[in-house]
């Protein structure tokens, strides 16, 4: 049981790294850094010297080789693969070292899920960064993290979690989780449609509180991909609609979280209120910095990771409220 505990904790750290690398890949526009999958221009790692690059470019004449874009993609792939190996090992441990049916079940599910997630990694490349696929791929990443965290909670079996009773937070924590997931969707949709810079000012967007927006095209999930989706294809009003929705929805999230945090404050799990508050404040600040300072790379990656933390924290509250 101890090994499962440690391995799942290590898995959580790994998942954070893989999510960060995924965000990095997206943010430096390296999603098509390798036109093929699982190799990169047919190489196991990526072409380094001139001779290899010549071979690579002769294999894919329509894709000029850029080592700065191949590196993020390949590094992301290998870390993700390592996480897959970890999942296999976790299944092995859970079957050999424990009789806890629930941990065994969830570990197997995690392994299957990571395989699925790998498939979506392949699809992001083969379907040329189609936004809906990239979006699902990121949600898959967050779900992987959540699964590892859940297995960790199960194996760790915190005494304090068994003592706390906050069943009167069931509904509000559920609503908060749902609203947060929706907000994460809008955030990812902003990123995958290259709409992060559609509004360069804050709190106004293009100098107005009600900019010209095109929701029909902005939220058309069956959009055409064209030759590829790198740098996005939507026109400006559609991108503004996506970006501005993410902002307005942030207000809704803040409102719901203020209620949840205040109610938590008066419950037996009061410290979690501060956790949520700090994360939320950090996340909002990072979001504003992203807009005002034109998407600094590390801030944008942090915005992604804090979203994951917020998801874990909100999940924890819901888990405590709904546990039997």
């Amino acid at each position, binding site marked *: 049981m101890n090994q499962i505990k440690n391995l799942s904790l290590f898995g959580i750290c790994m998942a954070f790294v893989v999510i960060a690398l995924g965000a990095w890949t997206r943010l430096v526009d390296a999603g098509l850094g390798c036109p093929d999958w699982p190799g990169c221009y047919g190489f196991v790692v990526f072409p380094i010297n001139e001779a290899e690059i010549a071979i690579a470019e002769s294999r894919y004449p329509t894709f000029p080789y850029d080592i700065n874009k191949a590196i993020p993609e390949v590094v992301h792939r290998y870390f993700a693969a390592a996480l897959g190996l970890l999942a296999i090992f976790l299944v092995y441990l859970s079957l050999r070292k424990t009789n806890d049916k629930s941990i065994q079940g969830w570990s197997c599910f995690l392994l299957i899920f990571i395989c699925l997630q790998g498939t979506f990694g392949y699809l992001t490349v083969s379907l040329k960064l189609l936004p809906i696929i990239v979006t699902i791929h990121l949600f898959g990443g967050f779900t992987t993290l959540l699964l590892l965290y859940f297995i960790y909670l199960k194996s760790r079996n915190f005494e304090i979690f068994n003592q706390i009773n906050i069943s*009167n937070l069931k*509904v*509000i924590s559920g609503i908060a989780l749902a609203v947060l997931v929706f907000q994460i969707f809008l955030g990812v949709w902003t990123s995958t449609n290259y709409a992060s810079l559609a509004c360069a000012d804050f709190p106004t967007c293009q100098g107005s509180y009600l900019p010209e927006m095109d929701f029909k095209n902005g939220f058309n999930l069956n959009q055409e991909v064209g030759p590829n989706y790198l740098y996005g294809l939507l026109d400006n009003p559609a991108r503004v609609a996506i970006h501005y929705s993410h902002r307005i929805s942030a207000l809704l999230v803040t409102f719901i979280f203020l*209620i949840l945090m*205040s*109610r938590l*404050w*008066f*419950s037996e799990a009061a410290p979690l209120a501060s956790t949520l508050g700090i994360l939320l404040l950090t996340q909002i600040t990072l979001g504003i910095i992203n807009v005002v300072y034109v998407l600094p790379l590390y801030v944008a990656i942090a915005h992604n990771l804090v979203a994951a933390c917020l998801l874990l924290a909100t999940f924890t509250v819901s888990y405590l409220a709904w546990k039997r």
Partner: protein
Amino acid sequence: MTLLKSYYELCKPNVVYMMLICAFVGMLLAEETVGSFWYLFISLSGIAFCAASAAAINQVIDRNTDASMTRTDQRPLPQGELSATHASIFALVIGILGALILYLYVNTLTMILTLASLIGYAFIYTVYLKRATPQNIVIGGLAGAAPPLLGWASVSNTIEPYALLLVLIIFVWTPPHFWALAIYRKDEYAKESIPMLPVTHGVIFTKLQIVLYTIILFIVSLLPYVVLMSGEIYLFSALVLSTLFLYYSINLYYSEDDEDAMKTFQFSIYYIFLIFLALLLDHFIIIS
């Protein structure tokens, strides 16, 4: 019969009923189960007599002003149906009766609190505050907000934080509620030189204050949920009702029509009634 009706009117029955509803909710929320019917009845009648007494005293003191305002000139004293002396004696008798009932059958704390709000409304507000400052109804509203505390104290014999929360809701609700009416009746208040906010600071400023107080009310109305006193039934009711109230007050802010002031006033009455109804429903559905 007409005399009886005059005395009945002297008590401002509509206001007293609303107060009794709030006190009643306070009593029911104070316990997990409904207490004995007889005890609830005797407590409510004690509070009712004191509230009626305060209303009668208010009408005796204000009889000349009331006579020159269309809103109040139908009251029994301006109509000459009762003499000021008879009304004063009546107010004194039911006031003492109410206080005695509370002292003998309920508890001393409730009696003191009830008399304090009687004095607050009938004397401090009517005699002094009303003519002294445009903040008259804000400060005086504390006396009008007391009923849930009185009801709660009659059952628990203590001053509970939750009861004070209910007082806070009515306290914050009173200014937008009353100022909406004051906008509608501003000319009459001006004629009587009563410094109501629309008279002293203008209608636009009053409307802004109404919007601001409604925003505070929105937040305050969520407190019972936040402090784990109530559950989701109350939360959703409060969200819907407060949003509607906010809509009415913002609509009033941009409106040129005084009828919108009347609509806001009328909605505010439904608002406070439904908020307390929601508190009650929530309380008993959670328990059962």
